[in-house]
């Protein structure tokens, strides 16, 4: 399965990581999920990073923001299909903390490496299973030219 995203939204989430550098950015991917599990991003919602104690290497999205985003997505006939965050001066691979604190099974976790303020690589990882069996798998990220 792949995560598809229009180029403008892809640029938008990468740019967010440049703006917040050297801190981690974060946000929500809203879109559609088809019967086969393929996900299409329709909207990127930028969120604040509430980890003001350690924003360069941790992120947390306020559940109050999540509640609003989820409600508005459902009312629009969409779903929360994933999340994104940046890794300042660190590879675009999931960390042990990313896995430990991931709980949206079936959703995509998109990570952008930002080196010296410039977005470099962006990868998507699909969260599978729960609890002890929880794991990330590499996921194809298809950027669509509009």
């Amino acid at each position, binding site marked *: 399965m792949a995560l598809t995203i229009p180029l403008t939204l892809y640029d938008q989430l990468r740019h967010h990581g440049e703006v917040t550098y050297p801190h981690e950015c974060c946000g929500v991917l809203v879109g559609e999920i088809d019967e086969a599990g393929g996900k299409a991003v329709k909207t990127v919602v930028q969120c604040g990073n509430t980890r003001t104690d*350690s924003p360069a290497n*941790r992120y947390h999205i306020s559940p109050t923001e999540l509640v609003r985003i989820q409600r508005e997505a459902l009312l629009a006939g969409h779903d929360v299909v994933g999340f994104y965050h940046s890794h300042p001066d660190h590879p675009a691979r999931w960390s042990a903390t990313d896995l430990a604190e991931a709980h949206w099974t*079936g959703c995509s976790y998109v990570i952008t490496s930002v080196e010296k303020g410039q977005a470099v690589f962006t990868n998507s990882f699909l969260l599978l299973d729960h609890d002890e069996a929880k794991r990330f798998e590499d996921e194809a990220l298809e950027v669509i030219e509009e």
Partner: protein
Amino acid sequence: MSIKILIPTPLRPYAGKQSIIEVTAQTVDQALSDLVAQHPDLRKHLFSEDGKLRSFVNVYLNDEDIRYLSKGATPVKETDTISIVPSVAGGVRP
């Protein structure tokens, strides 16, 4: 009375693939109990073995975290919506 619970994407497979479920309740606890009675597979994803909400599960009544209201005893009314949202966090530091 009947109120709505919004189900997050990861819990849909255990909730009959529904995003919104109607329950009958007077309090948040009763609403979650009715939800789990309708969809028993949800129980282990919402509650730990001691019956408490799992640490990463946030429950909101409209726009308020129930932990800052009266928790499970918070009364609900017909126009209310309960949202369930697992936490979203991470980062490069262990």
